[in-house]
Structures are given as C-alpha cells and as structure tokens.
C-alpha cells in the first residue's frame, strides 16, 4: 500500500481500478514487443505517417491563402519530413532490431534528431528542434489515437491516472465510469481541475510521481477532500474509506436539503447565486443545486475536440437548449475566450512565444470576424428565447469594447436584413479580468450594461503567476492585497455607474471568501454548481453587517498570509463542517 499526498481539487471519495493514460506531453516508456508482432508494428508506423501526411495536407489546403510565407514554409518543412523515406526507415529499423513499440521507436528517433539540431550554434538550425518535436507529436497522436478510444469505451468503473490532463481530455470523461482522477502535474485552478469539479469527479493533482507508482489495474483510492491518493490499499483502509464515502454522501445530502431555501443573509439581504457552465447540459445541474440562472456560460468547449469550427447552427442549438432549461432565468453567454491553450496554438503555425499575453480571446475574435460573427449571430438568435445576455472576455481597453459592440451592431443589421428575430436590447457586459480594465473600470462602466469579475485571470495577471505551473502555483492567491484592492475599485466603479456586477471566478466558490465579497458590496455570485449549496449555507449563516466588518479589517491588512488565515478562521467559525 502506498499513500501519496497531492492537492485536492475536486471533493469526494472514490475507490476504483487504475487506468493509466498518456498525456499529450508524451513521455513514451520503452515497451517491448514479441518478434512476431514486429510486422504489425512496422505497419503501424507506416499508417501513422500516412495519417499525419493526410492531416497536414488537409491543413495546408485550408491555409493556402495564408499570406505569410513563413507559415507556408513550416507546412512545407513538416510535409517533407513526413515524406522522407530515410526517416521512416530509421524508425522501422529500430522497431525491427530492438523489438519495441512504434510509439517508442518514433519518439526515440525523433528526439535523437531533435537533440542533434538543438546542439547546433546556428539559430536557424537549432530552431528546427521545435519542428521535430512537433512532428513527433503529430505522429504519436496518430499512433495513440487508438489508445485514446479506450477511455471512450469504458465498461467498468476506473480511476484515471495521468501525468498531466488537458481540459480537452478531462471534458471527454464519462462520469458513469470515471470515478476518480489523479495526475502528477496540475494545480488547484488549472482547467482540468475546474472541469473535474464541474463534473463532480473526485480529483487530486500535483502528485509528482504517481504515474511511476501505479500500474494499470491497481486499486486506487482518491480522497478529493484531503488530497490523498492510496495505491493498493489494505483491507482496513478500504473499509475506512468506504465509511468516509458514506459520511461525505450524507453531508452532500444535508446541503441538498437547503436547495429550496433562498440565499438570504441572516439580516435579510438577498444574494443571487448563479452557476458557471461549460456545456449546455450542465444547466440542469445548476438548477438542481439551487442556482437561479447561469452567470457564465463558457463557450470554448464548443470549439475544442474537433477539427473544424462549430457552425452557427451548432452554436444556436447549444444556446437554445440551455435557455430552454433555464426558461426565463438569466443566461450570460461569454464569447470565445480561447487562447494560451492548445486550440489556438495548433491553429497558429508560427506559435506565439507567450500565448498567455498574446492574440487570444476577444483580440483573437476581433481579428477573425467571420468566426466571431457566427457566434454572435447564434447568441442573438437565441436571445429571443429567454433572458440572454452577452459578455466579452479579456477586455483591456475602451477600443475593444467599441469594436466588439460595432461588430455586434453590424451583425444585428444583417439579421434585420434577413428578417430574423433577435433581442435588439440585449444586455452587453464585459469580464473584468486584467489590471488595465480593473483600473479603468470607471470609464468602461459607461458603455456596458454589467461587469463580471474574473478573479482567476485577474489574480494571474496582477501577480504575474501562471496558475498551472506547479513551480509557482502556491504564489497564486486571490487573498493577495493587490488583487483585493483592484476588486474593490471595480465594485465601487460599478456601483457609481449603477451597473450590475458579479464575481464569476473561483473565489465565488470558496467559502472563506464569501464574507469578504459580500462585505465589499457583491450581491451576485456565479460559481460551479456542486458548490452552490455550500456557499448558500455560508450566506444563510452570516449577516451583511459582519461581512462589512470582515471586509473593512481585511482591506487594512497587507499580507496575503494574514488575510487568508483571518478569512479561514472567520469562515470556520460560521461553517465548521466545511473545513
């Protein structure tokens, strides 16, 4: 039995057999094959090349109008490599001579070549290493595709173990069979963690070397409350955990009981609780947990896991279904917020050196108006079906608001031309998630109908920390005085301009921040559905007066540690069972 400690990112207990999956960062272990399997394996190599060439040729054709010759060159280079017979021969020879898997042969060969390149002093040549890694990835995707299907064709309950999980992979998990998740890498607010939470699957991350300690089929306990993973537990431990599991289910049940009760503080102030969703079918879960609407519909997932962009109909179907579940309750649809993440990086053949600060989100949309318009049309068409609002992400200045509104109006003109109905007075809001928009919120407030504070990104940008980087993820904290000061400014500016304001980042789902947020003036929170009952419990247990005191005290502190300790202590007094 081995006990490992990581970071708990999604609550719950699970006991199931391990299924190990390779992440897209491919560290292919050396696996041997039987001599009789060599021919099949060599054929797999050939097929992988064929598939990769086909994929690349398709992509090249789709980009034939690319103005940049640099992009055309990159395609040309990759295709020539894939057509290179001596490369293929080197790989198949390795399969044959050492009886290893196709994946191992591909990975080893290409990494050897890449390291040869990266040793060269000449920059032109050493840069080629990146191309080689890319080609390796492309071939491995072809080879591992069959393996990925294993996750899609589960027949029994499993615990997924991986080195790292991308949100794309996590989102594809079937809740019926995937009972628990554990990974070597990742942090509390990484996308994969967010997805695990919203799917309600217990998850523990940042275990560092879990994949080296587990074999497929081992029994694994995931304790998503305490951040513990136990491999091959003994009988006593299994029994213990089965009891914990029961207790946890009872607590959940208790929280469920307040579903019907309103989110009102002890001194009678109503707080609006909305849900954050990524898929339209999560709207039902929001209502089940007592949410009063959707405060953030993240539309990125419509674009992930596919080769082509979603059509207007596909957008519309998703939005229309969401609205029909929520009926006349508000739905805030956020336009595409992709970027600093695999989709746009794959689309761009000259990858950005710093995608986090690059052409992402609303900037990407304003440079790709055809794609943007498709989403806007669908949102507008859905706006007649209910209380639909539109929200633009990552706004940094007034011009972006202006441009986005201009395009929205142009799209409205088109719909008028085509006699298609839409809500002309649709409410338009923006995410405040950068220091620049937070500091100029007073002027932005004049031109929009509402703000929503994206505390995750606001924290990252303000503290200059990448929440997914386990080397620095402990520096990320929304209790940092700098972040809190910005949040307070935004709330004040919104109040002055008399526009609605809400918080939709992770902060809204953490009980220890609720008193602070309420005390700073927030009356609307949007959070992941599973946490709504607990947050409602918190709200029902406090008075706004107490919250104001808490906020006043906190805003006078200047150490993150002091603030987070204070908040945790204050929250524990109110709701001891949450800690």
């Amino acid at each position, binding site marked *: 039995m081995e006990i490992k400690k990581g970071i708990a990112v999604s609550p719950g207990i699970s006991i199931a057999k391990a299924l190990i999956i390779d992440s897209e960062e491919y560290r292919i272990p050396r696996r041997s094959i039987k001599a009789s399997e060599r021919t099949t394996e060599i054929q797999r190599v050939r097929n992988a090349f064929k598939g990769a060439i086909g994929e690349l040729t398709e992509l090249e054709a789709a980009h034939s109008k690319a103005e940049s010759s640099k992009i055309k060159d990159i395609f040309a*280079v990759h295709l020539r490599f894939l057509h290179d017979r*001596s490369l293929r021969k080197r790989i198949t020879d390795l399969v044959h001579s050492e009886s290893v898997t196709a994946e191992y042969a591909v990975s080893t060969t290409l990494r050897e070549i890449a390291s040869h390149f990266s040793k*060269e002093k000449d920059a032109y040549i050493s840069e080629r290493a990146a191309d080689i890694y890319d080609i390796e990835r492309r071939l491995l995707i072809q080879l591992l595709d069959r393996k990925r299907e294993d996750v899609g064709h589960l027949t029994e309950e499993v615990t997924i173990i991986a080195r790292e999980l991308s949100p794309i992979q996590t989102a594809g998990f079937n809740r019926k069979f995937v009972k628990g998740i554990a990974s070597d890498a990742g942090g509390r607010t990484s996308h994969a963690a967010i997805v695990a939470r919203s799917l309600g699957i217990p998850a523990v991350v940042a275990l560092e070397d879990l994949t080296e300690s587990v074999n497929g089929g081992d029994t694994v306990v995931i304790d998503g409350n305490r951040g513990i993973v136990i491999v091959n537990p003994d009988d006593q431990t299994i029994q213990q955990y089965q009891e914990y599991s029961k207790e946890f289910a009872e607590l959940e049940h208790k929280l469920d009981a307040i579903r019907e009760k309103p989110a009102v503080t002890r001194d009678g102030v109503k707080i609006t609780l909305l849900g954050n969703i990524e898929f339209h079918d999560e709207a039902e879960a929001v209502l089940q947990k007592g949410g009063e609407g959707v405060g953030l519909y993240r539309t990125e997932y419509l674009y992930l896991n596919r080769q082509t962009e979603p059509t207007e109909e596909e957008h519309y179907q998703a939005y229309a279904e969401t609205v029909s579940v929520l009926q006349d309750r508000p739905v805030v649809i956020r336009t595409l917020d992709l970027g600093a993440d695999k989709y746009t990086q794959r689309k761009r053949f000259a990858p950005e050196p710093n995608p986090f600060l690059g052409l992402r989100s609303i900037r990407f949309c304003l440079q790709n108006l055809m794609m943007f318009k498709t989403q806007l049309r669908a949102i507008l068409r859905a706006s007649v079906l209910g209380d639909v609002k539109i929200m633009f992400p990552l706004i940094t200045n007034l011009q972006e608001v202006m441009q986005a509104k201009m395009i929205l109006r142009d799209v409205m003109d088109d719909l008028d031309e085509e006699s298609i109905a839409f809500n002309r007075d649709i409410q338009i809001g923006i995410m405040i998630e950068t220091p620049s928009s937070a500091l100029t919120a007073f002027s932005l407030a004049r031109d929009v109908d509402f703000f929503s504070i994206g505390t995750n990104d606001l924290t990252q940008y303000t503290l200059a920390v990448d929440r997914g980087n386990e080397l620095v993820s402990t520096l990320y904290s929304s209790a940092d005085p700098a972040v809190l000061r910005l949040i307070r400014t935004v709330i004040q500016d919104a109040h002055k301009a008399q526009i609605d304001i809400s918080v939709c980042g992770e902060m809204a789902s953490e009980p220890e921040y609720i008193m602070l947020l309420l005390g700073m003036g927030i009356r609307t929170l949007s959070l992941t559905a599973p946490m709504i009952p607990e947050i409602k419990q918190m709200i029902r247990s406090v008075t706004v007066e107490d919250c104001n005191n808490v906020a006043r005290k906190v805003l006078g502190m200047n150490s993150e540690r002091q603030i987070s300790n204070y908040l945790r202590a204050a929250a524990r007094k109110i709701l001891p069972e949450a800690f």
Partner: protein
Amino acid sequence: MQAERDSLEKVVCETEVEIKNADGLHMRPAMQFVDIANQFDSDITVSNNETEVDGKSIMQMSMLAATCGTKLKIKAEGSDAAKVIGALRELVEEKLFGEPAP
C-alpha cells in the same frame, strides 16, 4: 565534372560546390535541394569533411548544417546522373537558392 562508366553501365557523376548564400544551408535551401534531387532517378550522396548524407532526405540534408563558404561534394549515381549534378550545381552556385549573398 568527372564522368566514369563502371562495369555495370551505371553513370557516376561528381562535383564540388560551395555554399554561397549568406544564411547557408538552412531549411528552405535544404528543401529546394531535396526537391530537385527527388525529381531524378539517381542516388545522390552529399558530403562535407565529416559526414556523408543522402541528398534526397530532408532530414539528413538539414542535419548537414552547412554554413556560407562550406564546400560540399555531391555524387550522383544513375542514368540521369549528369543532369541532376548540373541542376544541383546551378541551384547552389548560380541561383544561390534564390537568397542573398553575404
């Protein structure tokens, strides 16, 4: 240019060329070289002082990393050996891969 006929009636042609463009044999020139080489039947080997590579393989050619001023020997073996040597020599020394000289 030297042409020899060996006993199996295969033509062998050799020449030496100098890389004359400023940026040397980086990816784009290597691609052009390989594209031309692959248009012909002959086997093509390219060597600098240390290694010998297959002139039709982009992987091997790009590993040559020949900078401006480097001299390379090109050997072609096959029925169209003379033609391919001529085309390659033109590409490297006359056209400079369509790139600027230093």
